[in-house]
């Protein structure tokens, strides 16, 4: 099994977001593997443990992304590929185009990714990639079983669970509940240093010569309005609930 994981490095979900010079401030911020992509890495490792083969983790981004790829290697992935892209204006069109160019030259059975990234939240890149490669996909999977050249997956669709059988090669995106990601072990971290790590310039990808212009552009960035501190109601529980219902009806007019 040639298993690939596409992963993205994101802000730690605990980070406070601030804006500096019209951009999200990145200094001092802790970066992690996008939590959904972590499920994808874990699933790739589990499939490999059962079926044999290799796990390659691939990311598009600036040099700092190497750290996330190294973490995946320390978890047990065999190889890492970083497609260099320093353009903070890149959109999902750009990223999926770069990934598609890379994958057109690879022999793969299975591509795993996260359902969406917790920073941008768009959930486009993986599904776009499947379409660009013309392979079937299922998003938001919570279970994966592979027998010869078929995969059976459970997929979460707004609370309903669908069981789908899909012919490989295929692409799946991981939903929470798929597995519990392992931590990198100390020997894993040591071994990771010796594993193949390939850094590619965009121009080295087939069919991608210069920059690929994004098709959407950010024109403004803002923080949400602070919620004004609320009111703690007073009195007995009975009095508080009566007041609450009154406020909702007569002041907020939502009931």
């Amino acid at each position, binding site marked *: 099994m040639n298993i690939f994981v596409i992963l993205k490095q994101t802000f730690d*979900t*605990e980070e406070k*977001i601030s*804006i500096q010079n019209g951009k*999200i401030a990145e200094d001092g911020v802790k970066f992690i593997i996008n*939590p959904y992509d972590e499920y994808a890495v874990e699933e790739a490792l589990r499939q490999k443990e059962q079926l044999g083969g290799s796990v390659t983790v691939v990311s598009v981004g600036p040099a700092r992304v190497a750290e996330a790829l190294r973490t995946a290697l320390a978890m047990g992935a065999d190889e890492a590929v970083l497609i260099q892209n320093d353009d903070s204006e890149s*959109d*999902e*069109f750009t990223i*999926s185009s770069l990934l598609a160019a890379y994958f057109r030259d690879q022999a793969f059975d299975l591509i795993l990714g996260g359902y969406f990234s917790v*920073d941008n*939240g*768009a*959930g*486009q*890149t993986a*599904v*776009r*990639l499947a*379409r*660009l490669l013309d392979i*079937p996909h*299922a*998003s938001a999977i919570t279970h994966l079983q592979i027998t010869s050249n078929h995969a059976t997956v459970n997929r979460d*669709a*707004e*609370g*309903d*669970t*669908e*069981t*789908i*059988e*899909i012919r490989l090669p295929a692409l799946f995106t991981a939903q*929470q509940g798929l597995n519990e990601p392992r931590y990198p072990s100390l020997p894993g971290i040591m071994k990771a240093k010796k594993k193949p790590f390939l850094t590619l310039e965009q121009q080295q990808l087939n069919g991608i010569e210069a920059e690929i212009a994004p*098709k*959407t*552009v*950010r*024109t*403004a*960035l*803002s*923080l*949400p309005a602070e*919620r004004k*501190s*609320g*009111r*703690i109601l007073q009195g007995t*529980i009975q009095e*508080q*609930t*009566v007041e*609450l*219902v009154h406020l*909702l009806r007569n002041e*907020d007019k*939502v*009931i």
Partner: protein
Amino acid sequence: MGNTYVIVAETKGGRLRQVSLEAIHAAALASHEEDKRIALLLGHQLKEAADELARYTEVILIDHPDLASYQAEIYFAALTQALDPIQPYAVIFGHTAIGRDLAPQIAAHLNAGQISDVTAISGSGDAIAYTRPLYAGKAFENRQFSSSPQVITIRPNNIAPAQPASTSSSITELSYTPSTSLRSVIKEVVSKSAGRIDLTEAKVVVSGGRGVKSKAGFQPLEELAEVLQGAVGASRGACDAGYCDYSLQIGQTGKVVTPEIYIACGISGAIQHLAGMSQSRIIIAINKDPEAPIFKVADYGIVGDLFEVVPILAEEFRKLLCAPN
């Protein structure tokens, strides 16, 4: 001649979803007067939903047994059969399970930019700005297209629904030619949401956290939700503890909800939970601990035991809502 905006409408249990009416309004906000707006409806036995939809805008209907439930490959094939001859300028979806899956496929097919999870549309002419959350609502961006065609998904409950017109528009039926080379097949669907109000579209959400203490602890919350015709949600703490299904989870790695009223019961208010609900219009927190961070974002707080407060609250709402005026 104007451009064509296509709204991909959705149904649930044969009925039109609210988010599709919101998408029709989104199309009106994004387009010019002279542009054409068409709603596309895919499914099976959807005559009634199509009639309903025609009260808002022109409709193209593809009705076929293969489209009875969503399947990525089949829906993609049917949708492109309808879209390719139209050459749309923009295609608008709800940011729902189906829209999230179908939109990026269509964007790739059309070689188009896509703006996902839109919560507001502003501007006019060529400078239409789409507002969308970043970092699970810890920031917002405005995004614009620098090319067409355009693909857009809109978050339920944020853009006002379209209003029906005084006369009905036309319904055109298109045939669907089933694809012969399917590589995926749905074996089974276990519906846990049948008859339930969809969380992401609910006007009222009653959520339980680890404070509910057990599966049975969700019962009073369900009763409160029923009185308010709302849906029940949960924190990850409650899901992890096995008190409820993960499909109820609200937060950064769960669902994002923006109801009129959000009632958090026994939820501490961790940042990852806030990410999924802090854009709700009115937030009510019920928690034993007066120091719980949830009170910092709540409009109204009741410090107390949820097992005492929630039933009384349900009773008060019942009195109000069921009383003859």
